[in-house]
């Protein structure tokens, strides 16, 4: 047996690797005997960097933890600072935050669709998804002034009010996406080969998913209705009417379909946001950044990112900068614990398949 055993390094330089991560696989033929994820290619020591920057300087920094979906990171940071400093956010800011969270969820899911389909070697929906996402990035740019790093949810509210005519543009985009959904359905989600490739792959039981710390699609793909947006509504999610999509399979197929259903829900939430958007100011001024000190204390805040629970444990010792920040990122557990477990005994053709159905994003692991 030992003779036929090969060590295969998957990544970091690899077409099938989304993000800079490496997995060393022990394979025999096409079967993986064991896998070990080797992160750290993107480790910048964010939490250490944050200890060197003041409360406002951290605000452009943190979003870089996750390049694909920077909003939840900005959001947890803003929420944590607000909770430590006792800042009340204006109502309209809550709605705008909800809106941008959902926009980013949509954008992240489209990226995931791109990544997942291209891992399966299925360029057509991949190209569509990336192309459609780009219009969303245009909207982001309109709203925040940048395509990728929006630096928009700041402690105290949001950085600028909606530009003129933004709602209409967003609505037009949502209608366009909704119009494209049948195409995605027929080409990808209803594709027999997708079923063949994904069903039964990376199967995890609900019990394991909970015990190993899974969140997001990992739980919802096992039929557990768990969503921070419902469990502990933040921003304006309390006023929104939406469902938590779940599937029972616990495999890649279920998880991908949960992602798809979430996009449908996101579109509906976005429409509600536009409908219910209150007027008023969007930013409660925080103290001048050079002087701002936050009283001693600690907090843990969490939001539902596109990939699951995104949390931040923030400690202040009364100074003008965080004493310690610790991010609880969904990919950390998904990528380092669950992925390793699910890869055992899997086919090497399914490494990317499983990894992306778990929605592992490397920078989030490394931070």
């Amino acid at each position, binding site marked *: 047996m030992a003779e036929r055993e090969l060590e295969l390094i998957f990544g970091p330089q690899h077409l099938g690797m989304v993000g800079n991560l490496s997995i060393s696989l022990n394979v025999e033929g096409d079967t993986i005997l064991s896998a070990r994820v080797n992160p750290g290619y993107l480790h910048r020591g964010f939490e250490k960097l944050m200890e060197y920057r003041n409360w406002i300087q951290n605000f452009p920094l943190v979003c870089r933890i996750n390049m694909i979906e920077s909003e939840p990171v900005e959001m947890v940071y803003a929420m944590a600072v607000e909770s430590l400093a006792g800042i009340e956010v204006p109502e309209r800011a809550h709605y705008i935050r909800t809106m941008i969270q959902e926009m980013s969820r949509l954008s992240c899911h489209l990226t995931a669709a791109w990544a997942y389909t291209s891992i399966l070697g299925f360029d057509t929906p991949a190209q569509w998804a990336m192309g459609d996402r780009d219009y969303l990035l245009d909207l982001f740019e309109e709203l925040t002034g940048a395509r990728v790093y929006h630096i928009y949810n700041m402690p105290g509210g949001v950085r600028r009010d909606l530009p003129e005519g933004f709602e209409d543009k967003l609505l037009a985009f949502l209608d366009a996406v909704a119009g494209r959904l049948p195409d995605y359905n027929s080409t990808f989600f209803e594709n027999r080969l997708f079923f063949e490739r994904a069903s039964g792959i990376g199967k995890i039981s609900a019990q394991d998913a909970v*015990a*190993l*710390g899974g969140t997001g699609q990992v739980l919802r793909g096992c039929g557990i209705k*768990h969503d921070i947006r419902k469990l502990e509504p933040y921003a304006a999610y309390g006023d929104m009417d939406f469902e938590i999509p779940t599937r029972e399979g616990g495999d890649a197929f279920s998880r991908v379909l949960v992602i798809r259903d979430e996009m449908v829900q996101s579109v509906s939430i976005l429409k509600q946001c536009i409908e219910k958007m209150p007027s008023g100011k969007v930013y409660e001024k925080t103290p001048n950044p050079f002087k701002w000190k936050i009283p001693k*204390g600690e907090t*843990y805040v969490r939001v539902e990112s596109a990939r699951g629970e995104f949390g931040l*444990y923030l*400690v202040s010792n009364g100074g003008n900068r965080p004493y310690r920040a*610790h991010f609880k990122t969904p990919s950390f557990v998904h990528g380092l614990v669950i992925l390793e477990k699910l890869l055992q005994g899997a086919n090497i053709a399914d490494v990317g398949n499983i990894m992306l159905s778990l929605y592992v994003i490397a920078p989030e692991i490394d931070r």
Partner: protein
Amino acid sequence: MDKLVGLLKGIFKDTDGESLGKNRLRVTAPRGSVLAVLDYLKASGFYQLKSISCVDWMDENEFELVYHVASMESPLHLMVKTRIARDNATFPTAIPIFKNAGIFEREIHELFGVEFEGNPDLAPLFLENWKEIPPFRKDFNMREYVKETYDSIPSFEEYQWQKEN
């Protein structure tokens, strides 16, 4: 929440609970009983270990380990804390209670240098060939290190200048 604190206080000596706003509970336990507290919490419905944070309180010469546990059904999020000595920091592993504790301990081991007894896998996670003290300790001077490590390497212009002279 209060009920839970009462229960914990009743069962474990020197354990205290304090509410930190809505749905957040901080439980402080002495070193010896933390794992027992965690075990108890798991049995009472807090199945999931979300994360383990470590805070370096250098002035007090202590590390603080924070176990974040939560249940799936209720929004309550618990932070179980304990302080351990900073020098030669060791702590028993939580793997027997929470299966996913190992990876968090591995991270803390690398970034803070806390030794977790009983954890079979404490290999470096992020860093390669790290020779300094663990980087997340407060006494690790990052900017100084950066200066020494990266700025000492000559730029191409410097090299050419050197070659010509």
